[in-house]
């Protein structure tokens, strides 16, 4: 994408007033390496590689590689890779020098192992993983009480180590699902832990709520039990629902395949695209949906990562949108979902 995209966030906090945040994505031509993240997260790590395509000066390309991992074993992982211009190979070599400020916790080994074998294996090292073999069996109590007690010291120690690498720790990003066992149980246990160990650091929680036709029978119990913890201990919650993500994906799919005249969509502009990834075919059905969430989190923090004429940091977002301490659930929206290739066709409003 050579042009700017404007992503408008409509937040509907519970007091009914509509607030609109406009976050502008600015493409910059610097190369950011290493552990210089001003806002370092916990299960949030951004690796930004932006390059200035020297051959075509008129367009500034931006290479963004972003990963977001999910705790629960239900959801898959996300990979964003957009290569632009020449020489992606040269830069790929340098990815090894980056390490994500993240902790991956799962009570089953499958997903985490997959990540470690993928192209991002160098970004995570074994000191950042906590895994077990048997899983939580979709049981909140197992995640919270059993594994919580068992792994408490381990988690605290690894957290402290990761936090020590940061110059200035601003916030924690916790990404999990509410329907499973590990994500909701152990996830909320960790949230509790963070409040005890690091009381001044903001805790942003991205929770994936189960949809109506979820196939996990105990997901309502798990969600309700986790909600109680979120109410007390999270500073800000961004709920995400699987069903709405699925609707968005369908809408885009419909748009792309409808074959209407002039409705060709610009490639790589889809909010669900993970164009240029090493996987040519999207194998898992959750990939598109996860990409949307990745986009969301990327955009939320873009003001902290890039310069602009009006910077809106994460703690500013939380300050402005949380009028009372317990009303901290933010609803997010994203636009545009795609960019039409033909600029003469008026976009749908």
């Amino acid at each position, binding site marked *: 994408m050579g042009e700017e995209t404007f992503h408008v966030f409509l937040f509907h906090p519970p007091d009914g007033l509509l607030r609109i945040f406009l976050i502008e994505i600015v493409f910059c031509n610097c190369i950011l390496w290493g552990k210089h993240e001003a806002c370092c997260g916990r299960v949030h790590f951004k690796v930004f590689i932006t390059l200035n395509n020297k051959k075509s000066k008129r367009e500034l390309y931006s290479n963004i590689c972003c990963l977001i991992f999910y705790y629960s074993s239900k959801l898959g992982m996300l990979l964003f890779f957009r290569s632009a211009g020449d020489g992606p190979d040269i830069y790929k070599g340098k990815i090894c020098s980056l390490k994500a400020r993240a902790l991956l916790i799962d009570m089953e080994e499958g997903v985490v192992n997959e990540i470690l074998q993928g192209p991002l294996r160098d970004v995570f090292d074994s000191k950042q993983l906590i895994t077990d073999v048997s899983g939580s069996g979709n049981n909140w109590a197992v995640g919270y009480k059993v594994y919580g007690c068992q792994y408490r010291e381990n988690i605290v120690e690894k957290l402290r180590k990761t936090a020590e690498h940061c110059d200035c720790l601003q916030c924690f990003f916790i990404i999990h699902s509410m329907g499973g066992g590990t994500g909701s149980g152990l996830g909320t246990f960790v949230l509790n832990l963070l409040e005890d160990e690091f009381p001044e650091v903001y805790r942003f929680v991205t929770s994936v709520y189960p949809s109506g036709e979820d196939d996990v029978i105990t997901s309502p119990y798990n969600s309700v039990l986790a909600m109680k913890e979120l109410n007390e201990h999270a500073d800000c919650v961004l709920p995400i629902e699987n069903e709405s993500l699925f609707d968005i994906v369908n809408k885009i799919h419909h748009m792309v395949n409808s074959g209407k005249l002039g409705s060709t969509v610009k490639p790589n502009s889809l909010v669900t695209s993970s164009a240029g990834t090493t996987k040519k075919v999207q194998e898992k059905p959750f990939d598109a949906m996860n990409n949307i969430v990745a986009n969301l989190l990327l955009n939320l923090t873009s003001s902290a990562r890039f310069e602009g004429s009006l910077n809106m940091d994460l703690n500013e977002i939380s*300050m*402005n949108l949380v009028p009372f301490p317990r009303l901290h659930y933010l609803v997010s929206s994203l636009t545009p979902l795609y960019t039409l290739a033909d600029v003469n066709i008026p976009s749908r409003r």
Partner: protein
Amino acid sequence: MSIVAVQLGQCGNQIGQEVFNTICGDVRGTHGLCSKKENEAYHDACTERFFSEAESGVPVARAVLVDMEPKVISQTLSIAARSGHWKYNDQSHFCQKQGSGNNWANGYSVHGPRNKEVIMNLVRKEVEKCDRLSGFFTIMSMAGGTGSGLGAFVTQCLRDAFPTSFILNHVIWPYGTGEVIVQNYNSVLTLSHLYQSSDALLVHENDVIHKICAQLMHIKQISFRDVNQVIAHQLGSVFQPAHTAEASLHYSRNPLGDLMETLVPHPEFKMLGLRNIPQMPENSLAYSTFSWHGLLKHLRQMLIANAKMEEGSFRDPSLYTSWLNPQDAFNEWKTPRAFNKYEKSASLVSNSQFLLKPLDNVVGKAWNMFASKAYVHQYTKFGIEEEDFLDSFTALEQVISSYTNL
């Protein structure tokens, strides 16, 4: 006599950079339209006021940059250095990593005391470089966290450390439909605290400047950069060396003092507004001609558009309150040199009721929010209690009533 600028927060730093840019550009420009000797005198006065000489020959701005996050300051420093004609001192900036999060309490109660020593040291270093200090010119916004909260704290510290210097706070009034939801709280708290420690508050409203950009300068997509440039132009036109009525042979030696002397006769009335004409896009400058009479008439109309009165001259007693002699109330500063590519330009700094309506609005909105105690927990977290809010409200109500009774 020199003015030390203190740039606070993102807004303050961006505007400060534009101001120095404008001043430097004006000084270097050849559009003086006056004699060479005059030009040189102007150049000297201006550089002494705002810049100090460095070994490399590039003038160094007399400024201290303060912000709680590093991005804006690094951007400002690099833009200034890139211009090649002036730059900031590499040591005179202070930044942290975390930002204030639009929280006045964070800026005032946490970042202020924590960093007081460092910031005051930087200011003292700048002051020592001046032969004679005219005063301080602080630039800040009211809606954010650093500019407003830390700005109020720093102003207080400046007042304590330099009790005999003038402090002119340049305050940016946020958009009515601003993007910061707690801007009304931040504005109320800032104004009430600034009123105590500052000598005068020079206010620029974002809405008004935006309108100038849209209607007079015909800019299609107004960015903050355009707004900042307009503000910088207006500020520059006031602070450029000028002859006062008494000393018409050489440039005024005490700009801030003269300004305050005439404009702030009573400590209750400190809010100053600024109008500058003409404002037009650069392209049309070559095709326009001006006359002094026309400009002054226009200015007067702009002044009385905010107060409902009839025609007259600036010496008309009906413009002023009863307890002020019109002869003393109006002061003219002239300079034979043109400013910033305009052949003739006029600026009016006035202390009037123009800010009454916006102030009323802001206080009203803040009070509504406070009545339901919304967002108050964000401030109590850092030490600002409800009593502080109430004190600020009372102080501002008093200011409003004083201005209304004029």
